[in-house]
């Protein structure tokens, strides 16, 4: 309990609880982990079995679970509300300051270059040409969708316990739920032949202002533990001038984010496949995904 900042995840926390088999030894921390889904399946099953002999702990677990479930519903309607303009304005100001930072880096880079030219190369260590490049890359307009996909990948793929909201075990529910939220029947690409098993999926917010817009992310993992994500959703915020072009695009490759990604747009719906893979491997997977999502449409080609 008193180990600051260390992760307490190892399942059956204290030695006393694991060595003792009396029902009362169910530790509160383990109950929390069970309720919050932070136990490995085997440990969760073992704990559930012990709860069967401990009515008090079982009641606590049930009450906490109900609490958690109702908290998960609380104010969930916020996700369907448009973001207030005042908040968007606040972000816009953030963006200006980011521009300043960007400029600052650039001037820093120039300064470093000048100094380098004078043979003072050591100054440039610690200046951040890499950061500057990443910031500039994030600004590229046309690949905004792909950028969001890559960011979503970078945020969720490293998650150990909760990479997804709905796990692969509930595939049917996952597909129904996301289809409903994205307003279009979705299909789950099967990548087992390529060595990737479905981990699950999650719902993500879409673009600004589009109150109905939402994005889905499906995550897959291979036996080596490499995770790839498919990110998809309607592109309803496309600027008028670009809308015709945006309705359909060829495969495009972006490699300036934390992981590379292939993305394409089909009938106003965007798809991006992201993962820490070489371009060739990623392209092959992207083609498989594309073909699986488009089999019937093949006749219309």
């Amino acid at each position, binding site marked *: 309990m008193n*180990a600051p*900042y260390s*992760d307490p995840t190892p399942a059956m926390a204290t030695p006393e609880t694991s060595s003792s088999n009396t029902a009362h030894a169910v530790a509160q921390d383990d109950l929390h982990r069970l309720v919050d889904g932070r136990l490995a399946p085997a440990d969760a099953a073992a704990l559930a079995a012990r709860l069967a002999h401990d009515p008090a702990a079982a009641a606590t677990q049930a009450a906490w679970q109900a609490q958690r479930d109702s908290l998960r519903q609380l104010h969930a309607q916020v996700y369907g509300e448009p973001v207030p303009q005042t*908040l968007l304005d606040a972000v816009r100001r953030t963006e200006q300051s980011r*521009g300043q930072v960007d400029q600052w880096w650039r001037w820093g880079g120039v300064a470093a270059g000048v100094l380098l030219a004078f043979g003072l190369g050591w100054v440039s260590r610690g200046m951040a040409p890499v950061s500057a490049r990443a910031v500039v890359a994030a600004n590229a307009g046309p690949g905004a969708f792909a950028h969001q996909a890559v960011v979503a990948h970078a945020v969720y793929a490293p998650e150990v316990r909760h990479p997804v909201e709905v796990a692969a075990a509930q595939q049917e529910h996952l597909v129904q739920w996301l289809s409903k939220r994205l307003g279009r029947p979705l299909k789950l690409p099967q990548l087992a032949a390529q060595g990737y098993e479905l981990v699950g999926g999650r719902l993500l917010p879409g673009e*600004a202002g589009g109150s109905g817009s939402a994005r889905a992310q499906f995550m897959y993992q291979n036996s080596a533990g490499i995770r790839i994500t498919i990110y998809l959703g309607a592109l309803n915020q496309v600027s008028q001038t670009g809308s015709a072009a945006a309705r359909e695009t060829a495969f495009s490759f972006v490699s300036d984010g934390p992981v590379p990604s292939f993305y394409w747009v089909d009938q106003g719906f965007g798809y991006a496949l992201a993962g820490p893979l070489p371009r060739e491997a990623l392209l092959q997977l992207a083609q498989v995904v594309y073909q699986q999502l488009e089999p019937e449409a093949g006749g219309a080609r």
Partner: protein
Amino acid sequence: MNRQPLIDHIPSLRRYARALTGSVWAADDLVQDTLERACSKWRLWLVGSDLRAWLFTLMHNLFANQMRYQSRQPAGAGLVDIDDEADTLSAPEAGLDVAIDLQRCLLRLPQDQRAVLLLVCLEDLSYAEVAKITGAPIGTVMSRLSRARARLRELMEGAVPAAEDSAVSGKTSATPVILRRLK
């Protein structure tokens, strides 16, 4: 310039803030402060690191500061008439009564317990992440979580007797918005 990642996080920030403060307006103020803080500290965020955790850390610190400030204010400064808030606390889809009741009980938890419970349940963050965001050792996070869950269970299961009720609101002067029926 791409502000999308930041915008993407606004709905979850708003939702968390709403549960934390119990008020739509206070929540959006808190989110706005958070975004503005993000603006002034933008260079401290490393591109590619966890933006969500960073934003929640900023929000947590802002909220904790607000609470410290309010607790030094004359009694009543943080009071909000529940009748003014009733319509802003609605949850159209889920049972309205349940949501209002849950929110009401949440607000009676001490602020640090409420924050931990919401970060764990609403945001589904790991205990280690919650420890980082709240700046507390993980043992403290776990004990706050235990107390929050036990207390919320009591509050939800039996309407707490009036005597205990007043004792609670007297004790937890740090509670941000104490709902009070004025009529």
